């Protein structure tokens, strides 16, 4: 109840495409990629939050970016 994975109806429509760039450092051209999205998305989101809150004086913000924590950060910056 406190934390769930996104469900089908939380999502928008996806358009899927593939860009193939074989790895040049091994004979099969393979590379690990499963975590790429997971690693990139949190800093992108937190950077966006910080960018939005910068005019309000918020200089630091840690995950998770729940609405309550964002509001608390704004109040702390005002104080």
């Amino acid at each position, binding site marked *: 109840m*406190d934390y*769930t994975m996104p469900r089908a109806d939380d999502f928008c429509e996806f358009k899927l495409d593939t860009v193939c760039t074989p790895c040049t450092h091994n004979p099969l051209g393979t590379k690990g990629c499963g975590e790429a999205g997971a690693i990139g998305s949190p800093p992108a989101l937190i950077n966006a939050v910080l960018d939005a809150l910068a005019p309000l004086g918020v200089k630091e913000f840690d995950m998770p970016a729940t609405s309550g924590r964002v509001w*608390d950060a704004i109040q702390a910056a005002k104080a």
Partner: protein
Amino acid sequence: MYTFAFERPTTAADAARLVAAGAKPLAGGQTLLASMKLRLASPETLADLGGIKELTGIRRDGDSIVIGAMTRHADVAESAEVQAAIPALADLAAHIGDRQVRAMGTLGGSVANNDPAACYPSAVLALGATVHTTSRKIAADDFFTGMFSTALEEGELITAIGFPIPQRAAYMKFKQPASRFAMVGVFVAQTAAGARVAVTGAASCVFRHAGLEAALTQSFTPEAAAGVAIDASDLNADIHASAAYRANLVSVQTQRAVAKALG
């Protein structure tokens, strides 16, 4: 799996007798079945209310809409009668949980359970509804007595709820995204007797806010609601929201609900 007896009464009176004898009433099962799976509840007998025709249906009765206790959320949401008379109530029902919950969950089950973050209790309280049971009629103001607790006696079942048709009303829910329960939900109603404001999700039980009601009775505008200070001292604090944030949401969601009610 542990064993239990499963009864399927066909009248509300039979169901009330079973429940008085210790059976647990099963409405839509959206809380009870999950509790049983988690072993938080282990009733020896379930009395399934799903086969009792007199508990379903929606009808207009003078200046009220009367909805049977076993009416599913999806049926309230899609009812032309409710949409025409109290569109805020149809809108509330259309946004409870998800499609699966709305297909199974019932008005009576939600109101009898009185979860502190459920949507329906706010509509019952803000509209000044009347809860019809197997033995009496209970005014909304006397019905919700605390966290998961109501004025229902042992063996007493809700049969229907009568909602007086307001001049204007709207419900605004700020969802807790994981559970989809209300982190704060505010139901506002403008009636001939003044404004009524009921808040769910913010405290241990749904409650009316006297300050907001007084301000909105004077002037039914978002600006009037914005001028009311919300005391955070009795509000919930958990990992999703501090009490101060919930107090802010009570104000913001009331302003939004009033704007929505004014169309």
